[in-house]
């Protein structure tokens, strides 16, 4: 298989096996009719009947889709060659009669990507993929030429994972561009791209990316099994794949990481992970990924370790605030006022005089309002979204306090919680946290601090039982004692020069990834 085909994952060998009951026949008219019947009422399909040869003795049909096939290639390299060039240099009639296909395929068409298919169904799929199909008279195969070329969104900075420092490239909706973005960063022949076709009807291209000697074979096998077991009509986005291959579909926690950044994918590939690129989706999936990966941002690795560590700790702290702050406030004010210092207690009580609801209701009202505002802000266009934020946060909040429905401290707490929850780098983890926060609020309302701790325990048990493709979700927090260095890239980040080893999912023999630069520098100076 040529590099070209590998790169663009055109054809998964296994995915094709189930299609193709109708063999291509020798008769052009028969083949043509069959394809035409299948593509009836598809007005974007172009059928071009041509005559080749010096006297126009040989018939052929060129089929492509308007808008998906690159017009330039079709016109310049297929039609022109077949119709014009073939007349300039008359081939030996005898040869042409016997091997018209060879002449066309090997001598006439100047296109890089080409293959032959033997079934009508496969030809139709290729047409629908954006390739151009040539049916020759008196030949029992159909020639397919890679002409995929449609409008592609420009590679732009990713919208969801902003960094101050780091590359400003994000994935787009076209698989071949996405894989190329990663390939550009890795000039390593061990980096493999394996193609699949998923979706009974949509036949979407899905590629699994990995570095051959780093990735765990069990992971690839499992991934292969899970991808092949998907039986769905249409795959619209990588979100479909994510939900269909994840370990535990009823957990609120995401077990597959998604990213828009090619640099993140590159780095994770060399930590022994596998990436899944899905056509028509700018989000690439990474497996296995646990809690730790979801708390990392690309930028952590581009800045010096002290700053990165500080930001990481800050992020974990913000996560705790986002989870617990409203619940703790409710628990302490409702059930355990003795836990507060007297002065603080008086201040809180004074603020809450006149508020008609218990603290739980107050919190639920505010948190739900906030969620509504957030949802509204996301749906609205940028400029109006900001207005909603200001109207919601400032005006409604102030009015609610003035009206005496909500205490000012609750407003402060809910606002801090909201801001803190934005620091979680992974969007899908942040959603899980938001859900859990509501659960905690209710638990605090029913059982106070004990309820909060109980929910925490149950969530921890759940997290400890969770796995992402065989890797425990809380790795390395649940198995670090053997090697403390497993914690090097968690809530702390040690200097890059100390991160000699890859993550623990990589094979033992391939752990080493870097020479110790530090010793060398010291020697030089000394």
């Amino acid at each position, binding site marked *: 298989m040529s590099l070209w085909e590998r790169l663009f994952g055109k054809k998964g060998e296994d995915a094709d096996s189930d299609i193709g009951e109708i063999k291509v026949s020798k008769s052009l008219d028969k083949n043509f009719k069959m394809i035409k019947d299948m593509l009836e009422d598809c007005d974007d399909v172009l059928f071009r009947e041509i005559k080749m040869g010096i006297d126009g003795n040989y018939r052929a049909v060129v089929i492509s889709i308007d808008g998906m096939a690159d017009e330039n290639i079709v016109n310049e390299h297929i039609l022109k060659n077949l119709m014009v060039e073939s007349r300039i240099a008359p081939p030996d009639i005898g040869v042409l009669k016997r091997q018209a296909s060879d002449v066309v395929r090997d001598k006439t068409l100047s296109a890089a990507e080409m293959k032959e298919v033997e079934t009508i169904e496969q030809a139709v799929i290729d047409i629908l993929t954006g390739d151009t199909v040539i049916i020759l008279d008196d030949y029992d195969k159909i020639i397919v030429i890679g002409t995929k070329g449609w409008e592609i969104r420009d590679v732009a900075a990713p919208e969801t994972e902003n960094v101050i420092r780091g590359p400003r490239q994000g994935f787009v909706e076209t698989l071949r561009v996405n894989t190329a973005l990663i390939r550009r960063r890795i000039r390593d022949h061990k980096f493999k791209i394996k193609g699949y076709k998923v979706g009974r009807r949509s036949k979407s291209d899905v590629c699994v990316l990995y570095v051959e000697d780093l990735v765990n074979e*069990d*992971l690839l096998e*499992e991934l292969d099994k899970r991808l092949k077991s998907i039986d769905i009509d249409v795959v619209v986005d990588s979100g479909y794949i994510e939900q269909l291959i994840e370990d535990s579909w009823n957990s609120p926690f995401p077990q597959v990481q998604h990213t828009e950044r090619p640099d993140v994918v590159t780095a994770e590939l060399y930590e022994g992970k596998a990436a899944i690129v899905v056509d028509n989706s700018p989000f690439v999936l990474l497996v296995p990924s646990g809690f730790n990966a979801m708390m990392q941002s690309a930028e952590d690795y581009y800045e010096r370790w002290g700053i990165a560590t500080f930001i990481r700790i800050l992020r974990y702290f913000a996560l705790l605030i986002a989870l617990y702050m409203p619940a*703790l406030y409710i628990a*302490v004010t409702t*059930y*355990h006022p*003795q*836990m*507060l*210092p007297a002065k603080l207690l008086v201040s809180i009580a004074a603020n809450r005089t006149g508020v008609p609801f218990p603290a739980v209701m107050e919190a639920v009202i505010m948190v739900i309002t906030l969620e509504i505002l957030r949802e509204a802000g996301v749906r609205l266009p940028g400029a109006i979204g900001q207005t909603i934020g200001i109207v919601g946060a400032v005006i409604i909040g102030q009015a609610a306090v003035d009206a005496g429905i909500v205490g000012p401290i609750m407003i402060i707490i809910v606002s801090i919680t909201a801001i803190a929850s934005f620091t979680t780098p992974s969007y899908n983890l942040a959603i899980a946290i938001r859900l859990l926060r509501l659960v905690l609020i209710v638990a605090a309302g029913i*059982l*106070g*601090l*004990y309820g*909060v*701790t*109980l929910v*925490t*325990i*149950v969530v*921890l*048990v759940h997290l*400890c*039982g969770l*796995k992402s*493709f*065989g890797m*425990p979700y*809380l790795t390395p*927090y*649940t*198995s*670090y*004692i*053997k090697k403390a260095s497993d914690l090097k890239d968690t809530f702390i980040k040690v200097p890059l020069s100390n991160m000699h080893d890859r993550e623990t999912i990589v094979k033992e023999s391939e752990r080493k990834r870097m020479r110790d630069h530090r010793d060398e520098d010291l020697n030089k100076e000394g």
Partner: protein
Amino acid sequence: MEGNKDIISIDQMISILILTAISTGILSLPRRLAEIVPFDHWIVLLVAGLVVLAMVAIYAWIIKLKPGEQYFDILTDALSKPGAYIAALLYIVYYVGLIGFVTRIFGEVIKVYLLVKTPIEIINVSILVSCIYLSRKGVEVLGRLSMFILPIGSVVTVILFLLSLTKTNFRNLLPVFQISPAQVLQGVPATMLSFLGLEVALFFGGNLEKPKESTKILFAVAVVVLFYLAVLVSAFSQFGPIQMKSLVWPTLDLFDTVDIPGLFIENVQVLVMSTWVMAVFSTIAPLYLAGTITLKSITGFGDQAALAAFLLTFIYFVSLVPENLAHVYKAADGFTRYFASIVVVGVPLIVLISLLVQERLKKGAGEGA
């Protein structure tokens, strides 16, 4: 790659054991010691620690002799089938009793410190139900959970101790070395109550990744003894042996009022109580799991959650039998002295001797042939 294989590393085993041992016993340990011996409580603790060390060494030896085997199978090997069933039944009764006791104390403490008006039944059932959730998941999840909780718990505990140091007066520990050996022996059984639970090592030993390393579980005992020592020293140096007798849960009173000028909170109860709830959960859960595993091997019934739910009814009942706290402690004392000691020390000792004799015989037979 599917699901959990129920294999734990030795680190996880040590974490489980440490967290299992530390629970409700810690709250009353200083008082119970103060009631029995007038001074030198720490010597009593160290002696008890040595006894426990010997006990756990027996467990480690058994695990080493029969690597990778479930405890019930080991029991069958050592005591024959009927013997194994009787022993397993004893263990189940023991676990029901112990969990019932721990749950009751837990409920009482929560009622005093956190939820004054909530019925104790709700507190008891809620913690037990969350343990069922863990029982369903198995040893591997428990191992990871313990490994996760332990460092966080340790950090919080160290901070709490540092905060409580402001009021200590080490003169309260005087005089030293005045205790007689007889008094030590009197105090040891009362201390043993705080070490119950370590025998879960036997039940989880078969799930160890490398059974040859099983002797490392002695490390867990050392950690627990050290921790108790720290609690004893700071409790006695703060309250003195006389005042101690009148405190129901001196360890909690230790952190009751931390007074550090400039500190945002003058009350660290939020931290203390959450940590303690975690500690109790991580005690009840392993015990519960061990009980469920035993029940599973007796009945051969596969669904762990159903078995755990079945046990719940008994545990719940046991936890509500004593009328008041004094009864609870009295019953617990009798339970430890007469029943637990048989199950925790007696049965494993018999098993070990039987295994060693069998091995000797086998070796003799091998040499003879």
